[in-house]
């Protein structure tokens, strides 16, 4: 497979995955914050094609659950009540891509609510929360990585190109940022902010923090590339012809850093998604009831949830395809950028 093709395939996979999350309103059957207080911790409903009388149905259906008498979280499948899955049904209002008002959902049922991956403590649909939660987590990762790379790129380029005391200063600051105990600092920052931050503020706080923490490493990488690029013969020649610093940077030097940046992006995005999850897990992320993957996972902090409701682990699993996609893309990009190095390395490892 050609290297270009590999990159394209990974991009396609990631595009599809992100498309689902972006259009969460369509793929999710319900509003992620809507509580169904009759059904806390409902286990996932299984899709059936054959009913209790051994009849085959072409349309998949589910059985509703009934509370086991005398309990509050134990359910029994009620085979007397099959509910066929309906596709493209109107339901809760949502805004597609954040602005298009819509009501159409991929699937749903007529009268009762159906939960394909169960519900949480308040009877909220776990599937809808997973999808909508992805919007927060992935966007935090993408924006965080974007800002990080922007800051890292500017600082790295400045340090590498101008060199001297500026280089020293910027790189020492970068080292300082690498060494700071960020989690504790974040707790301190959070303590200074007003008590109640709304979900949007909390989200941007996370993104800012992630970006502020992350810029040092890409800055050092960019600086390295710039350092070597500015000594190339064609750059010297251009300088000899009287090119300005800005022209040199724009025309000859920064384009050299593009492959480093792309690879870094593919590595940083999943890292930052994970960072968002960690922060939310510790209660520093977007507040309830807005879902994010970290919020969803934080339910697992309770021992009783950990041992009783396996479907609460799903937020940990859902990131696997995303991370695989990003890491696959990162290695494909790296391969494309440095084919010889990769080959040499694999030869070395063979030897």
């Amino acid at each position, binding site marked *: 497979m050609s290297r270009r093709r590999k990159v394209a395939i990974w991009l396609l996979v990631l595009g599809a995955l992100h498309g689902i999350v972006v259009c969460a309103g369509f793929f999710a059957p319900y509003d992620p914050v809507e509580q169904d207080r009759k059904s806390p911790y409902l286990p996932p409903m299984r899709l059936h094609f054959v009913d209790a009388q051994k009849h085959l149905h072409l349309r998949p259906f589910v059985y509703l659950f009934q509370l086991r008498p005398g309990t*509050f979280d134990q359910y029994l499948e009620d085979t007397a009540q099959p509910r066929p899955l309906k596709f493209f049904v109107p339901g809760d209002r949502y805004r597609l891509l954040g602005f298009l008002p819509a009501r159409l959902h991929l699937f749903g049922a007529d009268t009762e609510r159906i939960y394909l991956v169960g519900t949480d403590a*308040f009877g909220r649909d776990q599937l809808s929360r997973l999808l909508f939660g992805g919007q927060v987590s992935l966007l935090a990762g993408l924006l965080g990585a974007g800002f990080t790379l922007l800051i890292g790129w500017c600082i790295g380029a400045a340090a590498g190109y101008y060199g001297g005391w500026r280089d020293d200063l910027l790189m020492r600051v970068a080292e300082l940022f690498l060494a700071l105990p960020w989690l504790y600092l974040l707790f301190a920052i959070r303590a200074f902010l007003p008590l109640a931050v709304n979900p949007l503020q909390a989200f941007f706080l996370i993104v800012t923090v992630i970006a502020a923490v992350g810029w040092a490493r890409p800055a050092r990488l960019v600086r390295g590339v710039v350092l070597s690029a500015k000594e190339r013969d064609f750059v010297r020649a251009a300088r000899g012809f009287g090119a300005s610093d800005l022209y040199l940077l724009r025309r000859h030097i920064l384009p050299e850093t593009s492959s480093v940046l792309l690879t870094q992006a593919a590595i940083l995005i999943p890292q930052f998604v994970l960072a968002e999850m960690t922060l939310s897990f510790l209660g520093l992320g977007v*507040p*309830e009831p807005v879902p994010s993957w970290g919020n969803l996972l934080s339910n697992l902090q309770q021992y009783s949830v950990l041992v009783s409701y396996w479907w609460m682990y799903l937020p940990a699993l859902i990131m696997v395809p995303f991370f695989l996609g990003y890491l696959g893309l990162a290695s494909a990009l790296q391969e494309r950028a440095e084919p010889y190095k990769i080959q040499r390395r694999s030869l070395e490892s063979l030897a």
Partner: protein
Amino acid sequence: MSVCHRILFRSFLIFSALIFHPAFVHSQQNDAKEELLVLPGEISRSGGRLVVSLRGEPKTLNPIIAADARSREVIGVMQADLVHINRATQLTEPALAKSWKVSLDGLTYTLVLRKGLKFSDGETMDAEDVLFSFRVYLDENTHAPQRDLLIVGGKPIAVRKIDAQTVVFQMAKPYGAGERLFDGLAILPRHLLQKPFQEGKLGQIGSLSAAANQWAGLGPFRLKEYVAGQRLVLERNPYYWKSDSKGNSLPYLDELVFLFVPNADAQVLKFQAGETDMISQLGAENFSVLSRQQNGYTVTDVGPGLEYNFLFFNLNDVGEKASAELQRKQKWFRDIKFRQAVSAAADREAIVRLVYQGRGAAIWGLVTPGNKSWGDANLAHPPRSRDRARTLLKEAGFSWATGPNGESTLLDQDGKPVEFSILTSSSNADRAKMAALLQDDLKQLGMRVQVVPLEFRSLLDRVTQTKEYDACIMGIASFDADPNSDINVWLSSGGTHLWNPSQPHPSTPWEAEIDRLIEEQMSARTFEQRKKLYDRAQEILAEYQPMIFLASPDILAGAKDSVGNFHPAVLEPYVLWNVEQLYRKSGPENATR
């Protein structure tokens, strides 16, 4: 000698025997046995050790400075009081005092001490120790938390000694709760504390790391070993003053071990793994985990307890220094109809079901169903009604605007959206869940509510010190069924009058009325009089809704099957209240251990 004379002489002999015989026996060595308090219950032999977990390290063993629940729990098994409230019957029982008399006017209590009482270091205890203890509690420089309790009718209780066994307590006003006053007031060892008391160093005594012989009590256990950060080991007090009905001296257990386990889930894991023998204050979800796989242990739902959970708004008179925003919000909070609407919208039944898995009760007042005698039967229990809530809000001048997505927003008189935050303790998952349910209930009314989990100490600091908050969800567990245990919640001058604590003067007429009712019931003589006054106070609270009561959890506890006499109570300390009677059953299971 005539027959008549003989009979007289005989009767004199019998008479004298009657008079002198008991005294004679008392002066003999089995005198102590005579004065032991005999407890009914399963009989066993002494021996064995019991391990329980404690939420953290107790700060002190000194009852004069103990303010945290962990210290009090440990002190509870190391100290004893004159009169004790039986945690199962919720009634008073003789303890160090074998009997007591109340004068007709209700002002004088005469307590007769048991004979032969000894502290855990072997020193005898008598009326002098009682005098000393009360002098310490009442001393202003000691700052003992017990002091407030001992000021009745504005004057400290006067304590007098009649003889070595008899003490008289004189009050300025009758005390409604009567001898319940003495429960929990530990009698202190004068021989150890007199000197530090005179030097004003009493607060430094009783640290855990001090040698075991520097501290003594009258409780069933005494200090044996303290390992910082890990455990506290207590051993049997050989001088304890109770026995079982066969005459065996109590406690049965040789050792009682407290493991420091700060986290509720970790306590459950330790109990499940068999590292601890008993567990209390279980959450409903952990209870259902434990009851699903009962393996050598049993968990019990003891029934509704005395803990009440509630929402309250910031009704403090914060004055100039408060932010304009808080002042704007307080305009809503001070509106009775607003608070009533919030109460009407709260889905208490869902809280009981989703937070407590049905192991709890919805409440509309501070007296929970676990309290056997003080609940007000006339208190209304209105079901959740969104319509009523909307009507109330409309009457108070609020209106609604419909947003672009069809969601409605509640607007106040000035057309500003109603938005506020609710604080909850981040370490209490139950209350966080209540807040999330309430948030959704209020969203239906168009209120935008944010839930802010906060570490408990900083939450308390905000509520009682800085007063920078909108609303807060909290829970209080009364330590006794008597209304006087919640006195600081009721009185406007009280420190746990949470919506507006420690007021110099009651800021509203209805708070003044509650103050009057509560103070009056404190000195009313009969239960009926007190109940009537207390009912009225409950009704005022329910009408003005400064606290919006939500739910009360059942007391859930568990013990290994090898623990005998395990009878958990709904009062603190839930499983350790009869610690002197707990014993280890000898069975095959124990033999292998």
